């Protein structure tokens, strides 16, 4: 393991791979600044570039992107009171009032520093867990893996929205759409509608971009086009922000650890992590009087946690091949595109790649925070550029990218179809992440299902591991379905 970690570091800092990591960080910072666009759009933007790329470069680029979005999203949150992404909503509560008092620079420096430290702690947590992972992975058989996949899908379904039934429906839709094309268990073409294009099913790039990028473009434009014309001075207090973080160092560690742990749970996204940490810091604070009016601890806690989440979120993704969020699903999809089979074998066969992920998180967080510190002036100006001036270029980029999946016009019509479906889902409150995760995992679920039914018939249901995981699924899904109903009653 140590050798793999050291080799991975050497690979990541080589000029070629570092260049791709830097590209991912730059795009991530840019996407984070634009209010309304999150990690999914960023991943969708860069994913097409991974066709034909070597896995190390691709992984470094995508992880670099995902790691720093929650660093730069602080700009609009603090300076304009608008969340740059879902991971910076709670930062507004105290960051914006402080910026209004002329202490924007203090908030930003504190936020960047604890984002970086949070990211590093998240990477450390991931690296500490990996050595213990191998025996766990080896102990799991296909029936347990199938049940773990169902557990991940169930948690994503019921936790990623307010309506668990709609979440489950969204997952079922994703799993069903994944059955288009060649069956993984036999050479049978299913639901290809008589077209060559669908012989391999819908292409993931088009599905992901359609579901997440197009609806966000439409929603932002339809709300008025411009994000805001209000410009706020960065104010003063760069050094004070750093001193604040040093003074509250235990707060940073505590919330980074909470962020990593919550990140591990599939379905709990940035928004929840942000608010949970904000709630915790208030709960345990002796003096609560300044929260909501401009208390720096209200910035430090969520900012430490949301960057640490990435490390935690990679644990189920890497160890079991179960992505806990839409962006992790895209990372898995990118691995498939680059010829790497995600799943439990990854840690056994490609430990170097897993450590590339760890190093990428760590380096990306340092890079992202440094760039945000150094270029805070020009970067903050980007947030006030009207969206209609940026949107055509991003749309062109994602369209070009989507077309590279098969270079068939069907890619664009798939993109359009899922764009419309995604917009309807967004409007009507049906969570979209479960659809994408179901779609990505559909082949794996079908293969596992076929293996266990053909090898064990129904006997696999009596295995202790299967029963334990089954009970957990029933509790999690049942509580969400009936507990929430009881709450609303």
């Amino acid at each position: 393991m140590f050798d793999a970690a050291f080799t991975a570091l050497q690979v990541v800092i080589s000029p070629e791979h570092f260049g791709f990591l830097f590209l991912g960080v730059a795009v991530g910072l840019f996407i984070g600044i634009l209010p309304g666009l999150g990690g999914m759009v960023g991943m969708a933007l860069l994913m097409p570039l991974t066709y034909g790329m070597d896995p190390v470069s691709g992984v470094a680029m995508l992880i670099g992107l995902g790691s720093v979005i929650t660093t730069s999203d602080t700009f609009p949150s603090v300076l304009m009171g608008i969340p740059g992404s879902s991971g910076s909503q709670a930062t507004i509560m105290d960051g914006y009032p402080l910026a209004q008092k002329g202490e924007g620079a203090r908030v930003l420096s504190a936020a960047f520093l604890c984002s970086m430290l949070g990211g590093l702690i998240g990477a450390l947590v991931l690296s500490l867990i990996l050595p213990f992972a191998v025996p766990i992975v080896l102990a799991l058989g296909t029936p347990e893996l199938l049940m773990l996949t169902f557990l991940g899908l169930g948690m994503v379904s019921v936790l990623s929205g307010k309506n668990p039934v709609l979440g489950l429906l969204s997952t079922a839709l994703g799993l069903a759409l994944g059955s288009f094309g060649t069956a993984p268990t036999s050479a049978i073409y299913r639901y290809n509608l008589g077209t060559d294009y669908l012989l391999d099913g819908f292409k993931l790039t088009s599905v992901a971009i359609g579901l997440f990028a197009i609806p966000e473009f439409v929603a932002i434009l339809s709300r008025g086009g411009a994000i805001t014309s209000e410009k706020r001075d960065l104010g003063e207090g760069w050094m004070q922000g750093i001193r604040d973080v040093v003074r509250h160092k235990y707060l940073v560690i505590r919330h980074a650890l909470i962020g990593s742990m919550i990140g591990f749970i599939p379905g709990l996204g940035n928004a929840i992590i942000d608010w949970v940490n904000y709630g915790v810091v208030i709960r345990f604070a002796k003096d609560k009087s300044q929260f909501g009016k401009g208390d720096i601890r209200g910035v430090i806690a969520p900012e430490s946690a949301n960057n640490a989440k990435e490390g935690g979120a990679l644990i189920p993704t890497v160890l079991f091949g179960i992505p806990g969020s839409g962006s992790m699903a895209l990372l898995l999809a990118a691995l498939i595109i680059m010829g790497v089979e995600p799943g439990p074998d990854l840690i056994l066969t490609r430990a170097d790649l897993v450590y590339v992920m760890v190093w990428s998180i760590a380096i990306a967080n340092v890079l992202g925070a440094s760039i945000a510190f150094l270029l805070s002036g020009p970067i903050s100006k980007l947030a006030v550029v009207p969206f209609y001036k940026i949107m055509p270029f991003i749309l062109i980029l994602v369209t070009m990218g989507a077309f590279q999946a098969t270079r068939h016009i069907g890619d664009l019509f798939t993109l359009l179809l899922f764009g419309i479906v995604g917009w309807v889902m967004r409007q009507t409150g049906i969570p979209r992440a479960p659809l994408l995760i179901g779609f990505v995992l559909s082949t794996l679920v079908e293969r596992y299902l076929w293996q266990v039914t053909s090898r064990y018939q129904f006997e696999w249901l009596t295995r202790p591991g299967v029963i334990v995981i089954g009970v957990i699924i029933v509790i999690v899904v049942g509580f969400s379905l009936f507990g929430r109903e009881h709450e609303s009653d």
Partner: protein
Amino acid sequence: MTEDLNKKVLLVFLGLLALFFVILFLAAADFMPDARLYPVVMSITGFVLALASVIRVLSGKEPTHEHNLIKVEVKSDARQDDAPADRSNREYRSALFYLAIICFFYVAIWLLGFRVATLVFVSGFMRYNKQSLVSCAVYAGLSLLLVEALSRLLGLVLPAGFWHLLF
């Protein structure tokens, strides 16, 4: 008003999903046994969930407002003195309009090819957003530059369209 509209849209969407799952189930009957199990299980599950969702919406248990979203408070040039319902309806119409523009862009790519469609789309979009003709030309030029640079740099293939077949 928008809540009602969302509810209607949700019901129509759920109805279409239920129909979709029925079709998947019926089509799966023709597959070989090895390839049939998974789509059958998924289509039945999906159909049951779609039906359950319809019942919950009709019984008022399913809230139909937007959720899980980043609420971007736009400080725009749009009229702010309208009632919230009027503003929401205008946003709905506006969203449909922008979706139509994106549809137009993709149909244009199919018919005219990527480069020509990009020029038409960007200049038209900027003109719609009240930019001067010079600005429109600049944006269109920049977008074409971006397309050319990326396609040459990364060796990307782009749709050529049908129009060149005429010459």
